């Protein structure tokens, strides 16, 4: 890839709660290139949303805090700049779509009002101009009914609302669009519509997208590159072909195997034993060790690093590191 738009390095994000510190994000690094769609997958609670909120500077503070690491957006470290500067970037250069289209729009203001607001925050334009832009953007996302600007969110269906959210995010043609599970709340047929739309927008405007989801099917369809997270850490990262054909990390493998494939027959599914660790008491060593089938002694003591297994394929597992060592000596 030619250029990176976003580069997160060793991000550490902690929540200081009554019950102790939750290391919700523990050393996450990832990057998104220009025009690239990067998928961020992982089970519920693994830190996907928190990571994306950190980019936007929207971590509830307190209790949350970015303790270490950097988030470079177009060469600017978003963790270092002031709220005011961040506000200028937010909504303009980096935009975000949230999971719940039902609750992410303010119920007391019309759709038009909320759409135009984005423009008027960042550009000095007249109301009518903003209105025009809003309408244009709505057309882009496939809503051509003009009256919709005066509708209130509750008058729209879930799919429509999510389109409005997308329109809102795309209003100022951002360089980076963060989509946090944008289709989870929608039906399959509607989801297909929305995914289709996002793909088109990506192609048409060249917007980079950080696509967060837990649905591997969606990832396979949408993303160029995929980052897999487990318990606040990135465990694997590579392009989608390699990931699906040749997953390296035992967690990724397990994940893939537990999905009932639509073409598969009625047999026992693979299941990863146990459950996601309690964020308050992360296991020592590798965080996946308690559930891992290939667990070794070292896994319970040391935590592995995220290292390249091969060119463009990172994994956080001692198995591969051994392999690498072997490989190194054999050559």
């Amino acid at each position: 890839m030619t250029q990176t738009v976003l580069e997160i390095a060793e991000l550490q994000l902690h929540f200081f709660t009554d019950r102790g510190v939750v290391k919700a994000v523990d050393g996450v690094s990832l990057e998104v290139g220009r025009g690239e769609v990067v998928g961020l997958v992982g089970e519920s609670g693994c830190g996907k949303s928190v990571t994306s909120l950190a980019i936007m500077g929207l971590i509830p503070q307190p209790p949350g805090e970015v303790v270490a690491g950097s988030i470079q957006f177009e060469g600017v470290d978003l963790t270092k700049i002031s709220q005011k500067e961040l506000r200028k970037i937010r909504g303009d250069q980096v935009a975000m779509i949230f999971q719940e289209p039902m609750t992410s729009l303010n119920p007391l203001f019309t759709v038009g009002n909320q759409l135009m607001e984005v423009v008027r925050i960042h550009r000095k334009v007249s109301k009518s101009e903003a209105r025009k832009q809003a309408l244009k953007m709505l057309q882009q996302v496939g809503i051509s009914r003009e009256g919709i600007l005066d509708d209130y969110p509750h008058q729209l269906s879930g799919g429509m609302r999510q389109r409005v959210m997308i329109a809102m995010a795309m209003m100022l043609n951002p360089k980076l669009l963060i989509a946090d599970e944008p289709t989870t709340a929608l039906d399959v047929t509607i989801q297909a519509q929305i995914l289709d739309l996002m793909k088109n927008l990506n192609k048409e405007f060249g917007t980079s997208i950080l696509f967060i989801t837990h649905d591997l099917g969606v990832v396979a369809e949408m993303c160029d590159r995929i980052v897999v997270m487990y318990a606040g850490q990135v465990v694997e990262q590579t392009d989608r072909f390699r990931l699906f054909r040749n997953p390296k990390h035992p967690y990724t493998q397990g994940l893939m195997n537990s999905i009932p494939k639509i073409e598969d027959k009625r047999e026992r599914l693979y299941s990863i034993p146990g459950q996601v660790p309690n964020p308050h008491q992360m296991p020592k060593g590798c965080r996946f060790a308690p559930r891992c089938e290939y667990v070794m002694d070292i896994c319970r003591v040391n935590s592995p690093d995220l290292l390249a297994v091969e060119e463009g394929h990172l994994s956080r597992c001692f198995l591969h590191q051994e392999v690498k060592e072997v490989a190194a000596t054999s050559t």
Partner: protein
Amino acid sequence: MLLQVHNLRKTFPIRGGLLGKKTGEITAVDDVSFYVKKGETLGLVGESGCGKSTTGRAILRLHEPTSGQIEFEGKSLLALSEEEMRKARRDLQMVFQDPFASLNPRQKVMDILEEPLIVHGMGNGKERKEQVQELLHLVGLNQSHAMRYPHQFSGGQRQRIGIARALSTKPKLIVADEPVSALDVSIQSQVLNLMADLQEKFELTYLFIAHDLSVVKHISDRVGVMYLGRLVELADRDELYERPLHPYTQALLSAVPVPDPDFQKQRIILSGDVPSPANPPKGCAFHPRCPHVMDICKEVRPEFADQGGGHFSACHL
């Protein structure tokens, strides 16, 4: 033939106007007929709000059906008195979508599991306690879990408790209303496996409601597809997935994202949203979104008929 449903219909009143008069109706389930054979799993899929849950609940008379016939083991359930129905529920159990919401947060697992036994007068105190232990074991939980409260479990464990509760009265039919939708993939498979195991062990019959087509395909013997309160297609699993007849089923199947980057197929992207069940379109309910819509579809409601080999479909095509 364990369960037979004929022309089931369930409407909900819309209230409003002066003194809360009824001003309209939502037809949540409209003229649905199907049967479930003993020991099989019938999957029911469809988009949100199409009436899957209502169908499930109407069968258990948790929502009193507006009209229709429900025969369970040849007896009409709707003819039962309230007390008889209460007793009959021993054989008809339910697993809910949200494993947290469906467990009383103030009861210990022990009590949750014991209560159905008490209600149906099964066993004495000691026997019941033993049975609870057995149930726990069956769903992969252990003795120490009995004294905990639901919130002290993970989602997957809670759903196991829900399943254990449904099993406690040794029912013949279990209506599972999206039992895995709230769970993560890695946990989902644990629960699906458990359900499959239990079915085998106790010769259970499932009416399995879900919106995830791959899950339904995985677990079901036959699959029904619902749209806007109606059953639009019903067939054996493989038949349905390989040879969908109804355009809606086709679109649905094509829309499912497949976790395989190599998998390429032509998506049928439907336009528009699911209409409101309060005023469904005339004729075929699917016609406003149907890529193959014909004039007749706008006027005449297609018959839900056997297209051969037990493959039912409701389409003019």
